[in-house]
C-alpha cells in the first residue's frame, strides 16, 4: 500500500513539475535561439552611467533583467496580455503559444527590454472594478496598471501620489520618445495632463485625424428605386409624420440655398425652393409608388444629374437630411419591390447593436450642424461655446429638436425598432445585411459604422460608402462628420507603492518603447516575422504601411474568420488599449475593394471631420466643432461635488432621451416611460439632476486643464 502511495506521489510530482515547466516556458524561451540575434540588434544601447543626461542620450540601462508585474484589465480575457485561446498558436518560426502564456507580442517586448513580465490581471475583470479594488491596497500588487476608460482615475490617483509622475521622469531624461511625441502632439499632452500640471499615464491614442465611422448603404436599392424604368413599386399605404427641416423660414432659397462642392472641381447647384418632404406629404395617396415618383420628379426638376441616384451615390452626392429621409421613406414603402417579394418589412436605418444606439443621435449634425458627441466616444458630450465655456450637449435645445425629428422618423418606421432595447444583444448589422440568402432574411438599408467591417464581402456584397448629407455646419453649407478618431480614455500608469526605483525605470522604458518605431510597429502590426521585410503596403491614402505576410492572412482566416483586428488583439497581443498611437494601416489590409472605394470617395471629397484643433469645418466658430479631451482631471472636491450633488452621468438619462425618439410622435409611451413634451420639460430633467453645478465643475476643470499646459 505504502509502495503504491509512493508511486502515486512520485507520478503526481512528475506531472506537476512537467506542468510547471510548461507554464514557465514562454515564447521567448522557446524561440530563444531564433530571436537572440534579433534581440541584440533591437536592444537600445546600454548606458554607461546613471546620470539624467546619460539616460537621455543612451536610452535606459537594460543590463539587468527586471521583473515587472502587469495588471491590465479590459473586462475580456481574450484581450489581456495572456494568451487565452483554447487552441495553441504555432508561429512561423515553430514557436507554440498555449493558453496561460504571454501573447507573442508581449514575449517579444519582454525579451527586447530584458524584463520578466508577469500578468497578474484577474483575466475577466473590468478596468474600473480592477482600479477600485487595487486602490484599497495602494496599487501595490503590480508595477503597471492599465485598462479602458480609466484615464480620469489614473489622473486622480496620480495626483494623490499613487502613480509615478511621468512629467518628472521625462524631465529626468526618461521616456524620451514619448516626450518627443507629446511635443509634436500638444493636444494629446493637454488631454492627459492632470489638474496639478503633471502627467501620470500614457494614453491609447486612436488614429487621430482619421474618420471614425461613415454612412454605408445597400447601393443597389438606390439605383433600382431611382433609376429603373417601369419599376413595379409597392402600393401599400404609407403614413407620414416628419414635416421637414428645410421648410418655412428655413427653405433652401435665397441666402439659405446655393452651390455645394462635394469634391474640388465639382459644384452642385441646389435649386431647392421646393421641399421634397412637403411634396411627399402633400401627396393624396402615399405609397411606395407615389413617394418614389415624387422623389424622382423632384430630383429631375432640381438637379442636373444624369441619373437620379447620383444625388446620393458617388462623388457628386449633394443630398441633405430631408432628401435622405425622403429616400428612406421610399425604401420603407417598397419592401416587396426591393426584396423581390421576400419581405413585408424593410428597415431603412439601423445601428450595428443596440448598445450603439447613440449613433442615431449623430444625425444631429445634418440638422444644421447640431453637436451631440463630437468624437467617437459617446461620453464626449461637451462643446466649447463662443465665449469659451464648456456646455453639455445633451441638455441643449438643438439636441432636443433632433430627438423630436428622430421621433418622427421612428414613427414612420424608418429606424429599426430593435435598436433601442439594450437587453437585445443581437448584431443588427449581421441580421439586416447578412441574411439575404438565409431562410428568414431581414433587410436594412443604411447604417453609420466603420468602413472595413461594414463593407466586408462576407457580410453583403452590395454595401457601399456614401458621402454624408450636406448640411449647414458652422453656418456654412459643407460636408462634415462630427466623428473624428480621438485620444481614448484608456492607457496605463506605473504604481509607486508596488515598484522599486529599478522597476520604475524599466516600466518607463516599456512605456517609451511603444513610441519608438520598433515598438509602434510591433503594437500595430505584430512581430517582425509576421511582416514582409522587403515590401510595403500602399494604403488608399498613398502612405506606406508594413505589409502582413501570407501566414498572418491565412492564420487569421482560419482562427478569426478573417477579422484581422480580432486576430491581432486576441491571438498576437497587439492593438491593445495600452499607451500607444494606433495606425490605420492594419485596417486597410482587410478592407474589401468596395471599402477602398469608400475610403477614396471620402478622401477625395471635401468632407471634413472633428479635430482637436477645431480645424476642418469652415465657418466662424471653430470652437463648436473642436474635439474636447475625453476626460477632465477632477480634484477630489470636484469628484465629490459631481457624485454628491449631480446625477447626470447615469444610464437613465440616455434612456430618457431615447424615450423621446421612441414614443413622442406616436404618443404610445408605456407606463413608466417619461417623455418630455417640450424643451422646457426636457431641460428641467437635467436641471433637477444638477446640470448647472455639473457644468460649472467641468468648466473649472477645463480651465485648469487648459491653463496648466
Amino acid at each position, binding site marked *: 500500500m505504502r509502495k503504491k502511495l509512493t508511486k502515486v506521489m512520485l507520478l503526481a510530482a512528475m506531472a506537476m513539475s512537467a506542468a510547471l515547466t510548461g507554464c514557465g516556458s514562454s515564447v521567448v524561451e522557446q524561440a530563444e535561439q531564433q530571436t537572440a540575434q534579433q534581440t541584440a540588434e533591437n536592444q537600445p544601447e546600454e548606458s554607461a552611467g546613471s546620470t539624467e543626461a546619460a539616460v537621455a542620450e543612451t536610452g535606459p540601462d537594460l543590463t539587468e533583467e527586471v521583473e515587472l508585474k502587469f495588471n491590465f484589465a479590459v473586462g475580456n480575457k481574450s484581450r489581456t496580455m495572456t494568451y487565452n485561446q483554447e487552441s495553441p498558436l504555432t508561429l512561423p518560426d515553430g514557436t507554440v503559444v498555449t493558453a496561460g502564456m504571454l501573447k507573442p507580442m508581449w514575449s517579444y517586448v519582454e525579451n527586447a527590454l530584458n524584463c520578466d513580465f508577469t500578468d497578474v490581471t484577474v483575466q475577466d475583470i473590468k478596468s474600473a472594478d480592477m482600479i477600485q479594488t487595487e486602490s484599497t491596497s495602494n496599487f501595490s500588487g503590480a508595477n503597471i496598471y492599465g485598462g479602458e476608460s480609466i484615464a480620469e482615475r489614473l489622473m486622480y490617483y496620480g495626483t494623490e501620489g499613487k502613480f509615478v509622475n511621468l512629467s518628472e521622469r521625462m524631465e529626468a531624461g526618461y521616456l524620451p520618445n514619448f516626450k518627443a511625441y507629446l511635443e509634436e502632439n500638444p493636444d494629446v499632452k493637454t488631454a492627459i495632463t492632470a489638474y496639478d500640471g503633471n502627467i501620470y499615464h500614457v494614453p491609447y491614442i486612436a488614429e487621430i485625424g482619421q474618420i471614425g465611422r461613415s454612412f454605408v448603404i445597400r447601393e443597389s436599392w438606390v439605383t433600382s428605386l431611382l433609376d429603373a424604368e417601369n419599376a413595379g413599386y409597392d402600393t401599400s399605404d404609407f403614413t407620414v409624420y416628419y414635416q421637414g427641416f428645410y421648410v418655412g423660414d428655413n427653405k433652401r432659397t435665397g441666402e439659405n440655398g446655393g452651390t455645394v462642392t462635394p469634391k474640388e472641381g465639382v459644384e452642385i447647384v441646389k435649386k431647392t425652393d421646393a421641399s421634397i418632404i412637403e411634396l411627399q406629404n402633400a401627396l393624396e395617396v402615399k405609397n411606395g409608388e407615389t413617394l418614389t415618383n415624387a422623389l424622382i420628379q423632384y430630383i429631375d426638376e432640381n438637379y442636373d444629374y444624369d441619373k437620379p441616384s447620383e444625388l446620393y451615390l458617388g462623388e457628386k452626392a449633394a443630398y441633405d437630411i430631408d432628401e435622405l429621409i425622403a429616400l428612406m421613406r421610399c425604401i420603407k414603402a417598397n419592401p416587396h419591390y426591393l426584396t423581390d417579394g421576400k419581405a413585408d418589412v424593410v428597415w431603412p436605418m439601423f445601428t450595428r447593436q443596440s448598445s450603439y444606439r447613440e449613433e442615431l443621435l449623430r444625425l444631429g449634425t445634418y440638422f444644421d450642424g447640431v453637436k451631440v458627441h463630437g468624437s467617437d466616444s459617446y461620453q464626449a458630450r461637451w462643446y466649447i461655446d463662443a465665449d469659451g465655456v464648456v456646455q453639455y450637449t445633451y441638455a441643449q435645445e438643438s439636441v432636443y429638436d433632433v430627438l423630436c425629428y428622430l421621433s418622427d422618423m421612428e414613427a414612420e418606421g424608418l429606424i*429599426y425598432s430593435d435598436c433601442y432595447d439594450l437587453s*437585445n444583444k443581437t448584431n443588427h448589422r449581421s441580421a439586416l445585411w447578412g441574411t439575404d440568402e438565409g431562410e428568414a432574411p431581414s433587410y436594412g438599408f443604411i447604417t453609420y459604422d466603420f468602413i472595413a467591417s461594414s463593407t466586408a464581402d462576407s457580410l453583403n456584397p452590395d454595401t457601399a460608402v456614401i458621402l454624408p448629407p450636406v448640411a449647414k455646419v458652422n453656418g456654412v453649407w459643407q460636408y462634415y462628420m462630427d466623428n473624428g478618431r480621438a485620444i481614448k480614455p484608456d492607457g496605463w500608469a506605473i504604481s509607486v507603492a508596488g515598484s522599486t526605483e529599478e522597476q520604475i525605470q524599466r516600466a518607463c522604458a516599456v512605456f517609451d518603447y511603444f513610441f519608438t518605431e520598433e515598438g509602434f510597429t510591433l503594437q500595430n502590426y505584430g512581430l517582425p516575422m509576421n511582416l514582409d521585410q522587403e515590401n510595403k503596403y500602399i494604403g488608399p491614402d498613398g502612405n506606406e504601411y508594413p505589409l502582413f505576410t501570407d501566414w498572418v492572412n491565412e492564420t487569421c482566416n482560419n482562427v478569426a474568420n478573417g477579422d484581422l483586428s480580432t486576430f491581432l488583439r486576441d491571438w498576437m497581443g497587439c492593438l491593445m488599449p495600452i499607451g500607444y498611437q494606433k495606425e490605420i494601416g492594419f485596417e486597410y489590409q482587410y478592407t474589401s475593394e468596395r471599402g477602398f472605394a469608400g475610403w477614396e470617395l471620402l478622401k477625395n471629397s471635401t468632407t471634413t471631420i472633428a479635430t482637436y484643433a477645431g480645424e476642418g469645418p469652415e465657418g466662424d466658430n471653430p470652437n463648436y466643432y473642436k474635439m474636447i479631451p475625453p476626460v477632465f482631471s477632477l480634484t477630489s472636491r470636484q469628484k465629490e461635488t459631481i*457624485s454628491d450633488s449631480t446625477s447626470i452621468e447615469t*444610464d437613465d438619462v440616455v*434612456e430618457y432621451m431615447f424615450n423621446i425618439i421612441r414614443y413622442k410622435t406616436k404618443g404610445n409611451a*408605456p*407606463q413608466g*416611460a417619461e417623455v418630455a413634451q417640450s424643451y422646457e420639460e426636457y431641460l428641467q430633467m437635467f436641471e433637477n439632476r444638477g446640470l448647472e453645478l455639473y457644468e460649472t465643475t467641468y468648466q473649472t476643470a477645463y480651465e485648469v486643464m487648459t491653463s496648466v499646459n
Partner: protein
Amino acid sequence: MKNSKIEMRKPHGKLILKAIIKDWRLYVLLLPLVLWFAVWAYKPMGGLLIAFKRFDPQYGVWGSEFKGIDNFINLVSGVNKTEFWQAFRNTFIISAYNLIFGFPVPIILALLFAEISNNFVRKFTQTATYLPHFLSEVTITGITLMLVYSGVRSSGIIASIFQQLGLLEPGVSMTQKANYFRPLYILVGIWKESGYNSIVYYAAIMGISPSLYEALKVDGGNKFQEIRFVTFPGMAPTLIIMIIMRIGNMLTIGYERVLLLYNANIYVTADVLSTFEQRIGILSGNYGTGAAVSLFNSLIAFALVIGANTISRNISETSLW
C-alpha cells in the same frame, strides 16, 4: 433549600463554563455557525461607518473623511431623493405583493402535498416543484427574458400570447413596460421558490398528531374542517414565525433578479433599494451614499421585525423572542 441558595450564588462564569464542559460536543457543533456570524455578519458591521464618511478606498474606512449625516441628508432630500424614495416605495410594494401572493402559495402546496396519499406521486411532485430553486437566478431570468422577449425578428411565447390578446404592441418588449415588471417578478419568484419553501410547512403538517384528525372525523368533520380546525392551528407557530421573518425581510428584495430583469425605462416600478444602492454605491463610486441606503434599509427592517414580533406576542403568544 439552603443548598440551592448556595448553588445560586455560584459565579455566573463558572456556571457557564460548567455547562460548556458538560455539553462540549454541542458547542463544537455550534462553533462554525458562531464563526460564520462573527465573520460575515458582525465584523462587516464596522463598514457601516462608511455611511458617515466620504469613503475613498485608498484611505480605508478609518482614514476617509468624516461627513456626519450628510450622506443621509443627500439621500432623503438631495439630488438623489427622487430615485431614493422611488426605490423605497418599490421595495415596499414588491414586498407587499410578495407577502400577499407569494406567502400563501407554499402553504397551499404543502397542504396539497399532505393530501397526496400515493407516496411515489407525492415525492415526484415535491421534487419537481423544488427543482427551480436549485437553478441559478441567471438561468431563471434568462428563461424568463426569452419567454417575454418581443422583437422584430422573433418573440417569446408569452409575449406572443399577450400580443394575440392585444395586451402588447408588436415589437415592444414586456421588459420595457413598467406595468409588467412587478407581476413578472412575483410570478418568477413563486415559480422558483414556492416548492422549496413548502418544505417547512409540510414538515409542520407532518408534525400534527394524526389522532386530532381522527377525532375530527369521528365528530363528522369534512376535509375543509380538518384544515380549518386541525391543520392551521397545528401549523400556526410555524406560520407566525415565518411571517415575522418575512416582515423582517420586507426591505430585503433580492437584488439579483431585479438587476437581471430591469432597465432604466422601468425604474419607476422596478428599482428597489438594493439595486439603487448598487448603482449609486458601486457603479457611481459614491460608496458613502450607498452605505447610507444600506443602513437606512437595515434600521427600518429592524424596526419592522420588532414591531411584528411584538404584535405577534400580544395576539398569539407565539414570537421569536
